[in-house]
């Protein structure tokens, strides 16, 4: 676009000067760039179609297809520092390099206080990194991330809104009219299994049901990036497995990338395509990056007894344990 405008300016200038030769060269140049753009667009479209074909293939080869797709989230040399009240600079994250592919399910594990949530708020655009860059779909992230949605650890649902108002909020904010938004919301409420609770307020629902509302609320805007900040950690084990399975089921039908934060290694392995281990804070950085080649679709409750799962768990835990020990030593030392 930039090139195009420049050439137009040039054309005008040369027109006044009357230099016909320069005029024609510039004109051809701009024509060339236009053609190039069209070719690019066609390429892109074909790629998209290929992508779609891949997604419609049987579920178990899905991971293979996704392994070499283009990046959705890229963190390049990202550091985050805060100024402590005492005046010192506190480094939370140091030199993080991380790529999440399109449609990939990546979990971040690490000891408490290592900056997992900070990473998430950087990707969401709530905060900006002190150093380094964050690219979303190859574009520099500036301000809030427009193609992401987040399920938080605590509450997503607005307590003063009914379930259907909560779920339809994302569409209403984007200007969809009420009836259409409600129709869409009803669809999602049914998908997450809350049919019949449209008129309830969040505090009338159980913790598991509120998480369902949160899921529907974030998924209705069809985010290309789904951020999850220890989303299920407040649930009891059974509800948690149920929700995890449902998340996987819904995710497999979309092409969203998931960035899942958890302190539970088992949960991370059971859900993800990749598990990234962060080192203990302060100044946490990526310590390990593991591919999880377990077949999909998975049952979160049962996959834990798979020998391959146990091997991966042992391998990653070896890495994570050291960091947990360091982190623990820190907290004890501070007290």
């Amino acid at each position, binding site marked *: 676009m930039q090139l195009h405008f420049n050439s137009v300016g040039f054309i005008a200038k040369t027109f006044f000067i009357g230099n016909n030769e320069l005029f024609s060269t510039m004109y051809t140049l701009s024509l060339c760039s236009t053609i190039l753009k069209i070719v690019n667009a066609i390429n892109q479209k074909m790629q998209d179609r290929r992508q779609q074909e891949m997604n419609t293939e049987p579920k178990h080869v899905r991971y293979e297809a996704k392994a070499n797709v283009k990046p959705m989230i890229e963190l390049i040399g990202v550091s985050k520092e805060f100024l402590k009240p005492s005046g010192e600079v506190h480094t939370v994250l140091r030199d993080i390099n991380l790529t999440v592919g399109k449609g990939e399910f990546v979990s971040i594990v690490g000891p408490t206080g290592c900056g997992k949530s900070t990473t998430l*708020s950087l990707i*969401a655009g*709530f905060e900006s990194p002190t150093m380094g860059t964050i690219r979303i779909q190859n574009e520099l992230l500036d301000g*809030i*991330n*427009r193609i*992401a*949605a*987040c399920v*938080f650890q*605590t*509450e*997503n649902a*607005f*307590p*003063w*809104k*009914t379930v259907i108002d909560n779920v339809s*909020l*994302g569409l209403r*904010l*984007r200007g969809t009219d009420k009836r259409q938004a409600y129709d869409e919301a009803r669809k999602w409420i049914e998908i997450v299994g809350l049919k019949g609770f449209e008129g309830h*307020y969040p*505090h*009338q629902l159980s913790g598991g049901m509120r998480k369902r509302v949160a899921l529907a*609320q*974030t998924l209705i*805007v069809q985010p290309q990036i789904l951020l999850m900040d220890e989303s299920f950690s407040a649930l009891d084990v059974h509800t948690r497995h149920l929700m995890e399975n449902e998340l996987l089921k819904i995710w497999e039908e979309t092409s969203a990338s998931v960035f899942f934060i958890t302190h539970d290694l088992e949960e991370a392995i059971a859900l993800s395509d990749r598990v990234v281990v962060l080192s203990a804070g302060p100044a946490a950085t990526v310590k390990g990056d593991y591919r999880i080649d377990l077949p999909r679709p998975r049952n979160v409750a049962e996959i834990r007894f798979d020998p391959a799962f146990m091997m991966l768990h042992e391998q990653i835990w070896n890495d994570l344990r050291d960091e947990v020990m360091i982190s623990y030593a820190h907290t004890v030392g501070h007290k």
Partner: protein
Amino acid sequence: MHTLSAINNNTKEEIDSRKREIRKKALKIRARNLILQIFLAIIIFGLWEFLADRQIIDKFFFSSPLEILLHIADWFQNGTSQGPLYVHFIVTFEETILSFVIGVALGVIGGYLLGRNEILSVIFGPYIQMLNALPRVVLAPIFILWLGLGMPSKVALGVTLTFFVVFFNAFQGVREVDKNLVNNARLLGANKRQLARHVIIPSALTWILSSLHSSFGFALVGAVVGEFIGATKGLGFLISQAQGAFDTAGVFAGMVLLSVTALAANWAVGKLEKRFIAWRFVRQ
């Protein structure tokens, strides 16, 4: 399925009888509470009447419940020495409502602006703290000098009293909005206006509405104190006139009328609260 329906059939009558029982119990508890409340009133006023009647306490200084009631009835029937009662009543009520509405509106707007805008709150913060620390009743004489004996001076006093209560609550309410909810709305695509409408105002409303009870009381204080200091109409004026004539029963009668007004207003604010934060009162 079979057993379920069997249970339903068997116990339909039982359920009904149990319902009746539960309702009866609840009614009993309410009746008991009411009786206890009335009982307390009877003891206090009975004792007062008894002591005054037996001349144990001086009727000149303490009057008696019966005398106060008669005084009010007299005011209703024959009007007061300063004209009919309803005129005073309406004047005080109007001043209170006006200062309440203006004070709440200013307080909410100010609290919202300063709560959302860091620079404004830094600039105005210390001055607002300073004004709040000042006992604002001392402003009454200056308002009367500026605005005269009429209604405006009382409204101005009431506004300065109510403003701060609502302001601090609105400010706090805006500040205490759950950060996750704000972030969630922003990610879902809310712009500044939508953020205010869907998240910040509903969240702050709980705080603001809870401040309305006390701020209405302050509006009333503003009106009455203003009337004490200088006025030609109003319940406060009536009380101060009665005081000047050593009419103890008159002072008490004015107090009773004021407290009835306050009670009615409190009830109305409660209704308002239920209407605006209905989601808080919905139970399973």
